């Protein structure tokens, strides 16, 4: 995936040769792969069969649904940008840095992945809440985070950041430092090497990491409801709206879920298409 242009062309030629394909693809792999595919796709199909198509448009264009959709797209976009701004340097430091405690640091970066999101929300409250670690000084400075859209963005960034860091760090490690060293020996400074050599080489990893982060931010639920609350147009994102609608109108919940799935598929497919020309 990080092959330079010359070998990419060679690989494309190679895929036409059946013998070459079979070299890394044992026949038995198809069965579990198909089962796995069904496992993911069947629930989506089942969800689709629950949708009442006649009322679908009305359900997804209701005022509350529109407000939730707009809020979700806005917050997930901002969170993704924050993830890029913080996550790219984090991945570089973790992949290229030589210092004690790097493995421990990496383990901590991955904590939000295993933490139940509700616990993440509690942790964020303990940090940014009114009585939190930073909350009191923020209150003095006139910053109130709880129950605001900012809180939604903080929650989404917290849970999405590891996805970007982990996939970019993996790409950086497998790309190696050979090209960086060559560029540096030709007189390029570290920032130029990063911008002109390293990041272009790991572009697919960067893109997939960004997509993962965006998708995770878009689907964020537990940390948001614990940390940010739920108010239409302010903190009630699409997943929160879906969960609330389920109480009274399961049809609307299903319709909105499909909308969320559709957005995720479009974003992922679109980015993947650009990442692998």
């Amino acid at each position, binding site marked *: 995936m990080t092959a330079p242009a010359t070998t990419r062309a060679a690989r494309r030629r190679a895929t036409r040769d059946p013998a070459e394909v079979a070299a890394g693809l044992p026949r038995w792999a198809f069965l579990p792969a198909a089962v796995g595919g069904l496992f993911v796709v069947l629930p989506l199909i089942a969800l689709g069969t629950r949708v009442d198509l006649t009322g679908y448009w009305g359900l997804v264009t209701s005022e509350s649904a529109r407000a939730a959709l707009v809020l979700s797209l806005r917050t997930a976009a901002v969170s993704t940008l924050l993830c890029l701004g913080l996550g790219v340097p984090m991945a570089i430091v973790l992949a290229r840095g030589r210092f004690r405690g790097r493995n421990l640091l990496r383990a901590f970066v991955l904590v939000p992945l295993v933490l139940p999101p509700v616990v993440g929300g509690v942790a964020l409250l303990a940090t940014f809440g009114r009585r939190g670690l930073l909350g009191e000084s923020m209150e003095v400075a006139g910053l109130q985070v709880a129950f605001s859209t900012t809180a939604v963005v903080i929650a989404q960034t917290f849970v999405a950041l590891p996805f970007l860091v982990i996939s970019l760090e993996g790409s950086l490690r497998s790309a190696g430092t050979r090209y960086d060293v060559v560029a540096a020996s030709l007189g390029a400074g570290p920032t130029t090497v990063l911008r002109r050599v390293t990041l272009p080489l790991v572009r697919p990893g960067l893109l997939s990491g960004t997509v993962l982060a965006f998708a995770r931010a878009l689907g964020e639920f537990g940390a948001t409801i614990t940390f940010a*609350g*739920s108010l239409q147009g302010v903190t009630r994102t699409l997943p929160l709206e879906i969960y609330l609608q389920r109480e009274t109108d399961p049809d609307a919940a299903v319709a909105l879920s499909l909308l969320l799935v559709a957005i995720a598929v479009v974003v992922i497919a679109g980015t993947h298409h650009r990442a692998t020309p």
Partner: protein
Amino acid sequence: MTAVLPRRARAAGAALVAASAAVVVTACSTGTTDGGTTLTVYAAASLTEAFEQIAADFETEHPDVDVRLGVAGSSTLAAQIQQGAPADVFASADTSTMDELVADGLVSTPQDIAANALEIVVPPGNPAGVSALADLAEPGLRLVVCAPEVPCGAATTAVVGHAGLTLHPVSEEQSVTDVLGKVTAGEADAGLVYVTDVARAGDQVEGVMFRESAAAVNTYPIATITGTPRPALADEFVDAVLSDDGRAVLADLGFAAP
């Protein structure tokens, strides 16, 4: 997916899978009792403490019976029962959820076990000085309530409408537990929850009673599930809840008589 995990992360992933598989296996093995009977009781989340006590007493009287409690929001439990969840008894936090199951023919005739009304909940010391329902309409007060879609929110709407007030909450939560959580965390200045929630939270919060709460009193019905393989035992559990001892447990936790 083109994400590449470092080897260490992959090893950690394998360990996680193994660990979760182990958890699943243990969870399954604890589901079986030694030749005894398991009675599954689904109860609204606000009934948790009461039903834990009643179930413990019931198990003492029936040594060969293991009572398993499933607690969640009433509508979540009702949806699970509609999907065929293996419950024997269901206790709901409102009559409308139970009525849906009655209409579907999924439960026997319900009996009322308790009632619950709203109360204002504030952090210890009542920093915002809330003393009446009208105070909740004060501008600048960080008020948290239940969303109108859930039972506690419907009760809130009824009470506030009856009093002719308009509230401007900073958050409309999914459940009464979420409202309580925002107040105990000190994030909200006030919230509207049930009397029993204030009792349950102990000294983490203070309660402020208000007379308008009489406009919306929730009734808790209980019923056995139609077609349960243990109808006699299910009936016995319902009787235990309705008995003097059962009512005393409910009253101790702040529930009113139905």
